[in-house]
């Protein structure tokens, strides 16, 4: 009943948005709204028909579905960490509602500012608003620390959408992952709000409390402090971060990144549905593990503690699980050819570990690694195409 009325409303108002209508400039918005409820009015009528009706919208909806567990866990964890340091109730609903208060404004800002740019560009360039932003708008706030000011989040997503995507021509043409571009921008623009030990937990101020900043270092930041003779595993265990806790994700960090478990669940869902490439994800995991073992082998008495870290810790600490599952598999900025996807994923894994271990300025290396390999994906595609052409017998 409701949908019939809605359909009628769309049909009745279509003429206003068409070529000679008064609201012609708003046509992309109209189409986007309609496609959100119903199918697009432009469907293929002639043969050949595709066997699967998967389109950009379904593609993106699947990613959103895969993100939801991580997202809700991120909300809970943000609230839990906040209540923990503020000395408030740690019950599930108390923590979850606290997390909602922290995370929801970020998500709203990300979506509203991002859609503003999308609609602006769609209206000027007279193309339709694509569903790609549904994912970007959700991914972006999940990469941020919970304490980031809203105006900085707005600036970050603006940079991500405009510089990361629209200047290349919009969805499907971007070189870099827009959400990560926005995060990288904030990382360099406002380092004080994006890194350090005090940004990972929101502290609610009570009347009789004087503390307003709590040093809640992430496990990665803790490991970076380890001396040459210390075992990182022991150091983390002393702080209460056992492997299992790192795996499940109850620890301070960016909103979406902490739970490796749920990231893996999302990644499996995406791999099974064919949305994300298993080659990239497995390649990344192999890259991390092999580099980790290699460093273990060269680790000596005087080398930094990082070298002798069990490689599996690299997988569960920080944003690697999140990045390789949801960021690296972005079909636009990853290579399109199948075999080089292994190389692409592998290189992301290797770079992540190398940046973490060898660069003391960055405790975290996933963001840089993925953006760096994004730039190389056209080259990788080119190499594979050239190699395939070489295999052909010439002039047959």
């Amino acid at each position, binding site marked *: 009943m409701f949908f019939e009325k809605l359909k009628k409303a769309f049909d009745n108002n279509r003429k206003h948005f068409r070529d000679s209508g008064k609201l012609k400039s708003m046509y992309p918005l109209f189409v986007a709204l309609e496609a959100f409820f119903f199918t697009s009015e432009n469907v293929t009528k002639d043969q050949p028909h595709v066997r699967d009706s998967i389109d950009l919208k379904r593609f993106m909806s699947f990613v959103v579905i895969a993100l939801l567990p991580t997202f809700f866990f991120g909300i809970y964890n943000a609230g839990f960490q906040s209540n923990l340091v503020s000395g408030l109730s740690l019950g599930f609903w108390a923590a979850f509602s606290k997390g909602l208060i922290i995370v929801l404004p970020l998500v709203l800002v990300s979506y509203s500012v991002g859609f503003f740019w999308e609609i602006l560009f769609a209206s000027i360039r007279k193309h339709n608003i694509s569903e790609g932003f549904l994912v970007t708008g959700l991914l972006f706030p999940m990469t941020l620390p919970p304490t980031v000011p809203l105006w900085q989040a707005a600036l970050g997503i603006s940079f991500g959408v405009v510089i990361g995507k629209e*200047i290349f021509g919009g969805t499907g043409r971007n070189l870099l992952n827009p959400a990560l571009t926005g995060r990288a921008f904030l990382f*360099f623009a406002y380092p004080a*709000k994006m890194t350090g030990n005090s940004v990972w937990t929101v502290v609610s101020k009570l009347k009789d409390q004087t503390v307003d900043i709590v040093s809640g270092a992430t496990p990665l930041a803790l490991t970076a402090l380890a001396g040459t003779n210390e075992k990182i595993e022991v150091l983390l265990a002393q702080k209460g971060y056992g492997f299992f806790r790192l795996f499940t994700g109850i620890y301070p960090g960016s909103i979406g990144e902490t739970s490796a478990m749920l990231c893996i669940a999302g990644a499996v869902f995406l791999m099974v549905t064919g949305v994300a490439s298993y080659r990239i994800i497995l390649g990344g995991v192999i890259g991390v593990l092999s580099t980790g073992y290699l460093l273990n082998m060269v680790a000596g008495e005087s080398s930094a503690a990082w070298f002798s870290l069990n490689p599996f810790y690299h997988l569960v600490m920080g944003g690697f699980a999140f990045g390789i599952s949801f960021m690296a598999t972005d079909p636009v900025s990853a290579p399109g050819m199948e075999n080089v996807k292994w190389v692409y994923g592998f290189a992301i894994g290797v770079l992540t570990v190398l940046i973490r271990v060898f660069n003391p300025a960055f405790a975290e290396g996933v963001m840089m690694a993925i953006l760096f390999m994004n730039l190389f994906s056209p080259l990788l595609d080119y190499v594979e195409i050239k190699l395939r052409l070489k295999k052909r017998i010439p002039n047959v």
Partner: protein
Amino acid sequence: MKKTESKTLKVLLDPLWKNNPIMVQILGICSSLAVTVQLKTAIVMAIALTMVVAFSNLAVSVLRNVIPRNIRIIAELCIVATLVIIADELLKAFMYDISKQLSVFVGLIITNCIVMGRAESFALANPPILSFLDGIGNGVGYGSVLIAVAFIRELLGSGTLLGFDVVPRIFYLSGYENMGFMLLAPAAFIIIGLLVWLQRTLLNK
């Protein structure tokens, strides 16, 4: 008479907007990344480069019938190098602090494509006065972009203009922060890119 007047005007004004050395020809990018963190250095650099381009154009143009074609690049280089050294020494003598901040970039004017480009493409084929004006036009065209970029970078990056605080304290108290990114060279790249975008959009209307 009218025709020459309009040509003079064209030579002087074209490089400011329609044929801007940075925004259209994408020349002189290196120095515009390096010296635009502060407005002051950008202004000094703009003046220094304008002087060098104008006088090198003038000198090359005066000598254009004497310079043998085969060694014209060497001759142009000698003229430009002389002028750059003069500019550098003048800065050292009268504006020592800024000269320190600009460090090698004054000396590197000699490698700035705009100077050689104008000498090669314009001064060798045109009379002295016109060449001089062309140099002024290109120098100002380069300088205006430099100053625009430096204005944005200093305002957003340090909250100052020419060293004076311009962002009110109330902004900082309510949570505003300086954008550290603007102090890094990539910021200049992005700003120049946005300026190019803006200019193309306005020109194509």
